[in-house]
């Protein structure tokens, strides 16, 4: 009579096992997750983890030795280049596999496969932007180049060698938590990663917002809010440089400035990268340094995430020896130095993504009107797999401009849209970006650098260079469309070729500087050149960081590495230096209550540094924000939802040169003409309310108010690092914002034996269960650096070497 209890207990056991193995009942498969031999415990890396290993792979040609130092930086010594890239791929996967796959899935518009239909809008947007299409074109181009093909093939083989030999117990934690398995790497994925960088760095535009602004404001107001040039601009290539007549001349269509701006607002909501992808780089020549050798500095500012975008390593072969920050997902050292020279980048930030309104013959979208004829459309069917749901099929029309990104079926969700907008994006054009890194890793001199950087088409970057022979240089590099003045600032008609990009700026007309007399080159995303440059450069660039860097560098002599560290982590707010006097001069103190007066006193006594404990920085930030609202909110009251707001410099420069700046008046009050004093005082009163709240919450100190955090890519709170006590801000050289900031700080002094320093806000391991997951963050927060060790043969027994991995052919 034990059959019934058997059935009952066996059923309960089975149900329990199934429940604990799936997410049907519980939010997590607890049995699977917590099994000490399978689940997350296996990712709890021992504090004295042993990374030593001897590995054999049939793909290798020779032996490769990897020495891991005390910061888990691999120093890879290979007998040939294929092997070095194989091992680079293997190590990237070993430490960062989940991140590599997630980023490339996101780039490809495949996030729904992992996280379900909440990512569908993202996936459609990315596919309609043609990310996969662009990556396929890039792969074709890269594989035409035998050197780069070999490099990519070896890298891919290395990643896959790791994946193939990965037991389920050693799967990265995130796969276990989300519940999926890694797929094989491919050269296409490397290209997708690079296109993701193009998206992040070269996809920002405000075409819809600007079009609406141009329709909403009259010409005079529009020009005031969105000027073509800023008064205080200190361009990358100094003002006064003489340029030759342009070889390509773009001709503006007769209707460019007129008929196209009638009509109703364009209500499209785009997914956009942060436009403040700020960065700084500079190189000072030996004439300004204490050692007499050049120093190169670079801090690319990007979204701050864990695992970090960067992975530090040294790649050494008989043909090259490079050290620096690498991208998990791509071969080569990206920002770094070799035995002869150093190289770095800031974002070029020019508008290389434009929209065209397409006139289709009918809803089938098979033909569109172009140059007085019907032209055939191509279609690309995007199959989007969705976790737990049927596939979603999206048919994207491709025109002569590029994919039709927005149409009736997809407008990003703000308002239904009955128009068709094709996107012309430079990242769709064939180019071979990996070539630049390969050549820079090998570069010995300025000629090598010059030959290398012209391979960089998109994302366009300001490439800084310094060499042991004393040369310094900077190129505002990219394959830039030669635009007529204003081209691409607004959505353009897609019915005739006169609105198309008419050519590219020849590489020898890209703004550059080589060993300038002033003894330094620098860039901080500001406009590359002043108005004497014969090509249109667009209107929206940050200008204040560049201003300060040039001011400081000009004044410096006898420069040391420490000086450069201090400059890179400098929290001086040059924007506040210009704006605070406007507040202090105009505020009507007699109208302020005791609290408001107290905040004013804090602002008055502030030393203009956005340091961790400065309350003045918080007061300034909030007052400026409120001032902008007081001045402009009335003007924008009736505007469309999607519209461009003024450049930050417009208001400051506006009130500096004209105390009766017309936007100061509140249009909603007809009786009174508000003055600068009225607006500043009102801004103060409004700011005080917010400041009071911050003070009550104990968050008046700048770092607490700002709340810099570094999120894990899943944004799961325990894996994030929050409330970091770090200063800086938008207009400081140390441009650390809430989730954005210097993603890698590097300083290279090119003395006989190179002296280099670096730090990034993360850690070498992507595993939240490793002590190497976030171990650089405190150092980064404190503005401190690690010495970078370019290991040489013979140093195998150095005490910095902690582990050794030997790779050989099986």
């Amino acid at each position, binding site marked *: 009579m034990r059959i019934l209890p058997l059935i009952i207990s066996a059923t309960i056991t089975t149900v329990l096992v199934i429940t604990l193995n799936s997410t049907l009942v519980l939010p997590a498969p607890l049995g699977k997750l917590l099994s000490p031999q399978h689940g997350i415990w296996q990712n709890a890396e021992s504090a004295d983890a042993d990374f030593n290993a001897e590995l054999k792979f049939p793909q290798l040609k020779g032996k490769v030795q990897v020495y891991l130092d005390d910061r888990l930086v691999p120093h890879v010594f290979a007998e040939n280049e294929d092997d070095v890239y194989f091992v680079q791929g293997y190590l990237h996967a070993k430490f960062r596999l989940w991140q590599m796959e997630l980023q490339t899935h996101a780039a490809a518009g495949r996030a729904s496969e992992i996280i379900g239909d909440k990512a569908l809008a993202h996936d459609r947007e990315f596919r309609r932007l043609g990310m996969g299409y662009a990556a396929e074109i890039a792969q074709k181009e890269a594989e035409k180049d035998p050197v780069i093909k070999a490099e990519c093939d070896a890298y891919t083989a290395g990643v896959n060698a790791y994946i193939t030999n990965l037991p389920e117990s050693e799967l990265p934690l995130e796969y276990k*938590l989300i519940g999926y398995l890694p797929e094989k790497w491919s050269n296409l994925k490397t290209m997708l990663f690079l296109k993701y960088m193009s998206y992040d760095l070269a996809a920002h535009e405000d075409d819809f917002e600007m079009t609406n602004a141009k329709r909403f404001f009259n010409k005079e107001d529009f020009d005031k809010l969105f000027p073509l040039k800023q008064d205080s601009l200190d361009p990358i290539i100094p003002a006064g440089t003489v340029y030759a007549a342009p070889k390509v001349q773009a001709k503006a269509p007769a209707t460019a400035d007129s008929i196209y701006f009638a009509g109703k607002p364009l209500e499209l909501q785009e997914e956009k990268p942060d436009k403040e992808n700020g960065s700084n780089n500079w190189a000072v020549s030996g004439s300004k340094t204490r050692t007499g050798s050049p120093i190169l500095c670079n801090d690319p500012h990007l979204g701050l995430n864990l695992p970090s975008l960067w992975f530090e390593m040294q790649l050494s072969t008989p043909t090259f020896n490079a050290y620096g920050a690498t991208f998990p997902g791509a071969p080569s050292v990206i920002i770094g130095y070799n035995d002869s020279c150093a190289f770095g980048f800031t974002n070029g930030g020019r508008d290389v993504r434009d929209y065209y309104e397409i006139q289709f013959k009918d809803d089938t979208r098979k033909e569109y009107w172009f140059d007085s004829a019907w032209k055939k459309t191509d279609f690309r069917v995007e199959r989007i797999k969705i976790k737990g749901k049927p596939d979603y099929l999206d048919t994207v029309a491709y025109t002569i401009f590029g994919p039709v990104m927005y149409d009736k079926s997809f407008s990003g969700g703000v308002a239904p849209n009955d128009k068709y907008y094709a996107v012309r994006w430079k990242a769709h054009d064939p180019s071979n970006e990996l070539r630049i890194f390969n050549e820079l890793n090998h570069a010995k001199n300025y000629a090598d650098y010059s030959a290398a950087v012209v391979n960089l088409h998109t994302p366009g970057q300001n490439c800084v260079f310094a060499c042991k022979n004393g040369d310094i240089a900077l190129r505002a590099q990219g394959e830039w469309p030669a635009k007529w003045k204003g081209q691409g600032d607004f959505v353009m008609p897609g019915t005739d070729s006169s609105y198309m990009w008419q050519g590219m700026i020849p590489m020898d007309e890209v703004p550059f500087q080589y060993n300038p007399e002033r003894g330094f080159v620098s860039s901080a995303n500001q406009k590359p050149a002043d108005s004497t440059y014969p090509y249109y450069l667009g209107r929206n660039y940050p200008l204040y960081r560049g201003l300060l860097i040039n001011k400081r560098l000009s004044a410096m002599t006898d420069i040391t590495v420490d000086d450069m560290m201090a400059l890179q982590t400098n929290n001086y707010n040059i924007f506040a230096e210009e704006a605070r006097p406007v507040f202090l001069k105009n505020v009507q103190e007699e109208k302020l209550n005791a609290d408001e007066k107290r905040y004013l006193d804090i602002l008055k006594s502030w030393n203009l540094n956005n340091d961790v404990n400065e309350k003045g920085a918080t007061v300034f930030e909030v007052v400026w924000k409120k001032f902008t609202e007081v001045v402009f909110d009335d003007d924008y009251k009736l505007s469309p939802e999607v519209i461009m707001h003024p450049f930050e410099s417009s208001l400051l420069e506006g009130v500096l040169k004209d105390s009766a700046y017309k936007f100061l008046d509140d249009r909603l009050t007809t009786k009174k003409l508000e003055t600068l004093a009225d607006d500043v005082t009102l801004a103060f009163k409004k700011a005080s309310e917010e400041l009071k709240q911050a003070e009550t919450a104990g968050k008046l100190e700048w770092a607490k108010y700002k709340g810099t955090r570094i999120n894990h890519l899943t944004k799961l709170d325990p894996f994030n690092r929050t409330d970091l006590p770090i200063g800086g801000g938008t207009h400081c050289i140390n441009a650390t914002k809430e989730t954005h900031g210097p993603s890698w700080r590097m300083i290279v002094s090119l003395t006989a034996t190179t002296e280099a320093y670096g730090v990034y806000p993360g850690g070498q391991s992507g595993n939240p269960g490793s002590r190497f997951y976030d171990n650089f963050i405190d150092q980064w927060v404190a503005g401190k650096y690690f010495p970078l060790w370019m290991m040489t043969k013979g140093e195998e027994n150095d005490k910095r070497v902690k582990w050794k991995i030997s790779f050989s052919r099986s």
Partner: protein
Amino acid sequence: MKFIVSIVLIALLSFAACLYLPWWSIAIVAFMVAALIPQNPGKAFLSGFIALFLLWGRLAFVISANNEHLLAHKVSVLILKMDSPYLLVFVTALIGALVAGLAALSGSYLRKA
């Protein structure tokens, strides 16, 4: 004596099985051991329960201690909504224990069926 032997056997075989098989192989091991070694259902349940409680508890604790509880701090917040590495170790042990205990109970019924 059978009780102790059962516990030791379930623990050892579970450890070995999990080197190659999915985590739920502990249920099969406990079921088979209980079916082979005659014990009353209550004792069978307890032997499976104790075996896996000790095995998983100890494994998890040692791993976590070597990790200086770095991961357990994070994952306990994630799963248990509170920062307690020891509770996470306890929950781990409890889950293994329940599964093995119930499986062993079923095994003992099979024998007596």
